[in-house]
């Protein structure tokens, strides 16, 4: 590994993951240490028991009401998050082998599914970015909103670049992640010799930056949405 790769795709990854985990824990602590409101803020009608739990999950994962008032935005947001979940699961394969049946299936469909999801991410992110240059989203937006979208776009574009063009075998990526887990970060010969090595390092660099900023940004809504949606139905 060259020095730049070692620092960015090695040392910095540990820092980023540590900041992500500790940052999220700190953020949760900041919320939970404050007293809950004594006022019940939910709207009526209020579902109870199982129906309530189901409603909270549906509100958070599907947010069907939003589709009623702004269908195009709802569709983009829904597809974006679906694709995000997809690529997240896809990246989990880097950590180890899935059960054999799944491993085979995923391996077969990785190029098509991963490529599709990668494209969905780029398209929806562009849409999110462009709409922020138009009133009233423009006046509503603050630099954080643009920064996060650009950061996400960077990660996704570099990821797509690797997914669609780089001829690096999956086993080589897996080997790299294994070396990270073993605390001896190393690129195997396929990556080291590939012209796409820089693309990979940039992809990892941008992902690191995203991980570091995430716990302190509005992206914590991936946890918080369950909590606030719980309040709405209580």
């Amino acid at each position: 590994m060259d020095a730049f790769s070692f620092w960015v795709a090695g040392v910095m990854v540990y820092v980023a993951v540590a900041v992500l985990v500790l940052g999220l824990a700190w953020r949760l602590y900041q919320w939970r240490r404050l007293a809950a409101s004594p006022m019940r803020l939910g709207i009526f009608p209020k579902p109870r028991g199982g129906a309530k739990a189901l409603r909270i999950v549906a509100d958070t994962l599907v947010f069907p009401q939003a589709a009623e008032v702004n269908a195009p935005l709802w569709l983009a947001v829904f597809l974006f998050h679906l694709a995000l979940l997809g690529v997240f699961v896809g990246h989990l394969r880097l950590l180890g082998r899935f059960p054999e049946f799944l491993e085979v299936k995923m391996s077969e469909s990785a190029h098509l599914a991963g490529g599709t999801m990668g494209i969905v991410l780029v398209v929806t992110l562009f849409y999110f970015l462009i709409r922020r240059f138009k009133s009233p989203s423009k006046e509503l937006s603050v630099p954080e909103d643009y920064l996060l979208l650009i950061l996400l776009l960077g990660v996704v574009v570099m990821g797509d670049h690797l997914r669609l063009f780089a001829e690096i075998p999956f086993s080589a990526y897996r080997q790299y992640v294994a070396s990270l887990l073993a605390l001896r970060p190393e690129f195997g010969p396929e990556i080291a010799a590939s012209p796409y090595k820089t693309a990979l390092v940039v992809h990892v660099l941008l992902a690191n930056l995203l991980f570091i900023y995430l716990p302190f940004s509005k992206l914590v809504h991936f946890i918080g949405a369950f909590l606030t949606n719980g309040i709405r139905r209580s």
Partner: protein
Amino acid sequence: MKGELKEWQEKLLGVMKGRRNRQLLYYLELCTRCGLCKDACHIYRATGRVEFVPSHRAEILRRLYRRYFSPLGRLIPSLYEARELDERALEDLYEAAYTCTGCRRCMVYCPFGIDITWLLGVEKAMLVAAGKVPEELAMLTDAAIEKGNSIDLYRDLLQEQIKGLEPELRERTGMPGASIPIGRKGARVLYVALAGAHSILPAAIIFNLAGEDWTLSMFESSNYGYFLGDTEKAARVAERIVSEAKALGVEEVVITECGHAYRVMKHLDEVWSKQKFPFRVSSIFEPFARYLKEGRIKVDPDRIAERVTYHDPCQLGRNGGIFEEPRAIIRAIARDFREMNPNREKNWCCGGGGGLVAQPDLEEFRAVTGRLKAEQIAATGAKIVATPCENCRLQLDLLNQRYHLGIQVSAVTDLLVQAAVVEKGQKKAAALG
């Protein structure tokens, strides 16, 4: 940085800090400024003005919070366009907080269920501390508190006025013993009306026909302290009724047809005043629907022939939980009932809530922002719009004129009285009258 703050800034930031709890932090920190709430807001939809986007109203508080309280916001203020608490910010807070009807329709549609009004509540509390509040709301609140302090001065006059209503009550119920008792100890129900005979006589007719064991409150149920956003004063206004109910030992406090008054008594005041009521709080529709079901009052189902629609007041419906009882009453008395679309928790706000109706200089604003409501009513083809909220009724009357809707706006109880069957020479004894 603290040292540079002026005394008034310290005070207002102290208010903000004092209001900090878990929910507030979620609402401040989770909003992604996606702007979906704009599509759910009747004010934005009617005006297209950015400052009326619900999340934009809250964004002012959010940017102050970033500037003074959040670590990253203090470090890199430009990341959040964090802003100083200055005169200009106060102007913006005022504009944001006191032009919202508090309908909470945006909360229904927000993917995170963020309660914008909770954030506006903090904005209002800061403005109250700064003494920058709508004059009308402040005056009405203080007058209500003053009445509570010196009720002995009012008692005789009030009783005399109420006595004056009884001849008509007797005639319309056909019950020689019908009465409107005030402050009667041991009654089962304490009915809290609005100021004015229109809110007392129709309810008294139904209570008498149903043989209810009731008494009338000396206080009006409306609470301008709530609209003002001064929870301390709002609690004092509500306390007048709570003390009266305790002194009389009633089982049930029945709130008249009024959205915010029901919500204040049912859902808010126990928290504000840190107490548990020894009585039940109901909306007037709960006993009335019960009387119908139990056959204690009889109605003519054909009496109202024109098409009727029902407007869910935001504070009674999505914020209060009363949806079905008024509908049950209307269905029993009107042959042609048509729902608005959407309805119940998704109903459009009429544009009159939040104390806006009490501010004369907002009339033009209300006429413009009621457009979606007017279209919604027109689409039902109804001739009568029944709605149980005085603010809604005043606003709908305005919309009726401005949009030439040709409707009659009515309280539900008025329709019920119209349809109630009074047997000639009804022998039923009035409630312990």
